[in-house]
């Protein structure tokens, strides 16, 4: 009898202590997320938090295929104007509200109609949403729009609890209620965001973590120091110059992935009116600038060779990369010849760069390289918001800027190279290219789309109003007690299948 009692007590203690031993993963982020409302958020780090907090209709795989998450499947009508989405059954939000067609309808309408919604422009082709039955919604589009599914695999497709949204109103962003693997616990601005496991998550078996704490630490070296010291378990944004430190540390693991982003130089041709500058008027001068640069050297000097050199919106490894427009090696002689042909010995211009150390470093390297071919570049480090302003107004010669990248190629090309594109700050306008790009977004057939993008690219790439330079890679580092972490090209952190000892 006594032995039984001892056994029972031991089991009890074991159960109690093991349930008390919460598995907490502490994640170091590169910035403090902004408002935690999927319709109002605009930062990448915000999306990282959303990845654990809010599930979406669709998800992506590491090779950028769209797969179901809260949706189970979809159908596009022949004419491309109707999109029918089937919704997963048995899903509840963190507050117990069930996910159904009405909830999805509420969410999509909120994304479209909430004053100040940043998702509206992403899904504006949706003219109305209907709940066909309890688990089916129908989206009626004003025009065919192939990238829509990809948009629903991001913030626009994140589902929030209608009950919470209605009750909390403007305060929702401070107390988000979604349907993701973790629920919101607390937040201290500039300090931490705490999430804990949602026991009724529809995919609960794959979640082996009890708590996630996000800690914004803007300085990359400080993040790494904290990781090495054991104060963090996982960090994003490891500086390329720190990679060797991580590789040399036996307690850490480095995980990398190509990203969707690109960086390049945007040249002002005609914003707001045709400009008188040699770079704006003569494509040979732009080609000379392109040829004066050694992309691999930039990668080597600034990024220790860890990024990927490129010359198109998509990296050379992407299925959307146009093989008939490969990268060309640096050729200073040819560059000088082109300049001479265009009637110049030296061309001077101002290169506006964002006011952060890495961007400035790239600018300095460009400055030195291009000088050899005859370009006198003066750097103009400008604070980010101001720079965007100046870019919109056209008060710049060349702007060294990039784009975070979208899953769908349309997101990386259309708005930049069509005549009326919202991100067309160069003033470039080629009606044929515009027509091709418009067509490419209406058809869902990948082969057809690739052919259209190729035809358009072979027209806009040689014009070099955007000189694409490189593609940042994503580098995560974590303690080797963490297992199962996989880096996705969108830079988000997903905890499905992740364990921590």
């Amino acid at each position: 009898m006594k032995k039984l009692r001892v056994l029972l007590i031991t089991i009890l203690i074991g159960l109690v202590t093991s349930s008390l031993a919460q598995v907490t993963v502490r994640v170091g982020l590169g910035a403090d997320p902004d408002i935690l409302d999927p319709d109002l958020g605009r930062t990448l780090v915000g999306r990282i938090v959303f990845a654990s907090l809010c599930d979406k209709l669709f998800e992506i795989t590491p090779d950028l295929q769209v797969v179901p998450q809260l949706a189970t499947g979809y159908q596009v009508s022949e004419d491309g104007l109707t999109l029918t989405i089937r919704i997963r059954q048995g899903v509840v939000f963190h507050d117990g509200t069930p996910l159904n067609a009405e909830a999805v309808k509420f969410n999509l309408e909120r994304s479209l109609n909430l004053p100040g919604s940043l998702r509206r422009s992403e899904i504006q082709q949706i003219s109305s949403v209907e709940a066909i039955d309890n688990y089916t919604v129908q989206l009626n589009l004003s025009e065919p729009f192939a990238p829509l599914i990809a948009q629903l695999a991001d913030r626009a497709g994140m589902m929030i609890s209608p009950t919470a949204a209605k009750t909390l109103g403007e305060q929702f962003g401070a107390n988000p209620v979604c349907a993701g693997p973790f629920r919101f616990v607390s937040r201290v601005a500039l300090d931490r965001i705490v999430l804990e496991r949602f026991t009724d998550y529809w995919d609960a078996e794959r979640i082996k973590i009890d708590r996630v704490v996000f800690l914004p630490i803007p300085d990359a070296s400080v993040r790494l120091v904290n990781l090495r010291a054991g104060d963090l378990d996982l960090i994003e944004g490891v500086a390329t110059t720190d990679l060797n430190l991580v590789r040399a540390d036996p307690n850490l693991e480095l995980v990398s992935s190509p990203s969707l982003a690109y960086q390049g130089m945007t040249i002002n041709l005609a914003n707001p009116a045709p400009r008188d500058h040699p770079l704006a008027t003569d494509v040979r001068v732009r080609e000379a600038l392109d040829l004066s640069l050694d992309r691999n050297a930039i990668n080597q000097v600034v990024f220790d060779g860890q990024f990927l050199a490129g010359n198109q919106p998509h990296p050379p490894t992407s299925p959307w990369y146009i093989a008939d427009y490969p990268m060309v090696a640096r050729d200073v002689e040819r560059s000088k010849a082109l300049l001479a042909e265009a009637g110049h010995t030296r061309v001077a211009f101002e290169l506006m760069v964002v006011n952060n150390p890495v961007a400035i470093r790239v600018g300095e390297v460009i400055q030195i390289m291009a000088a050899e071919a005859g370009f006198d570049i003066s750097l103009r480090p400008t604070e980010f918001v101001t720079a965007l302003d100046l870019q919109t107004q056209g008060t710049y010669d060349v702007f060294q800027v990039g784009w975070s990248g979208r899953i769908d190629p349309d997101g990386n090309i259309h708005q930049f190279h069509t005549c009326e594109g919202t991100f067309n700050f160069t003033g470039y306008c080629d009606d044929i290219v515009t027509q091709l790009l418009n067509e490419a977004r209406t058809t869902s057939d990948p082969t057809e789309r690739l052919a259209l993008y190729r035809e358009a690219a072979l027209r806009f790439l040689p014009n070099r109003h955007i000189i694409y330079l490189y593609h940042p890679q994503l580098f995560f580092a974590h303690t080797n007690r963490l297992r199962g972490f996989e880096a996705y090209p969108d830079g988000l952190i997903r905890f499905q299948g992740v364990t921590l000892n």
Partner: protein
Amino acid sequence: MTSTVQGQVRRSWPLRNRAIRRFVANPSSIVGLALVMIFVLVAIFAPQLAPHSPASANFLAVRQAPSTEHLLGTDEIGRDVLSRVLHGARVSLMAGVIAVLIALVLGVPLGLVSGYYGGRLDELIMRFTDALLAFPFLILAVAFTAALGPSLLNAMIAIGIASAPTFIRLTRGQVLAVRAEDYVQSAKALGAGDLRILTHHVLPNSLAPILVQATLTIAGAIIAESSLSFLGLGVQPPTPSWGGMLNTAQGFIVQAPWMAVWPGLSIFVTVLAFNLFGDGLRDALDPRES
């Protein structure tokens, strides 16, 4: 020739010599003066002194430790640290001098007017000065520089404005002490205009402490400029500035520690020099405080 509570009374020639003698007798003042002169010379002759151009980068020699080729090592894109440190002196010198000039141009006239005329005007200027002083110096400078846009010029303006209150108060104090003196009263009685009195009698006799403060403010301005550059708000790269170099060096503290040592050391020595010099001036001009 008695010293009054706050300021100096009119000096005559023998006293000036005495001040010089006191200055020379103090070893730290001499050290300060010598270092200041070295700093100024380095700033002026940096292009001649530097072994390399501060802008030329050797992409194959990125972040190299000190060697015979690069006595203080190379930085994050392969530029010579020594040359950049030497050129950084120019920025610091400009920042120090111009910021102080701005502070003087703003502060001294306001202080003169405030102290001389008194009354409502004085109250107004004093409240305004108090308001300026209520903001922590760096925060005011950060706010101004951010508002005007990050650049060396705007940083100097911001520091100048933030330093002006000290001169307003100091000048005002001097004026208050001096305006009751006999020679000022007699000049007034003789019918001299206010402007003449201010410029010919009041100002010259208030100069000594202003000069001392100016020297000490140069020291403060140099630190302020490097702080702003450290935060990313002052001198913009690729122009070499000590604060900016420290900002970059922070990211490479493990891989290339030499990038952080020398710019900071330069700031330290230069500022110390001005502080020693200023203190020495003060001791020489006001023997009461010893």
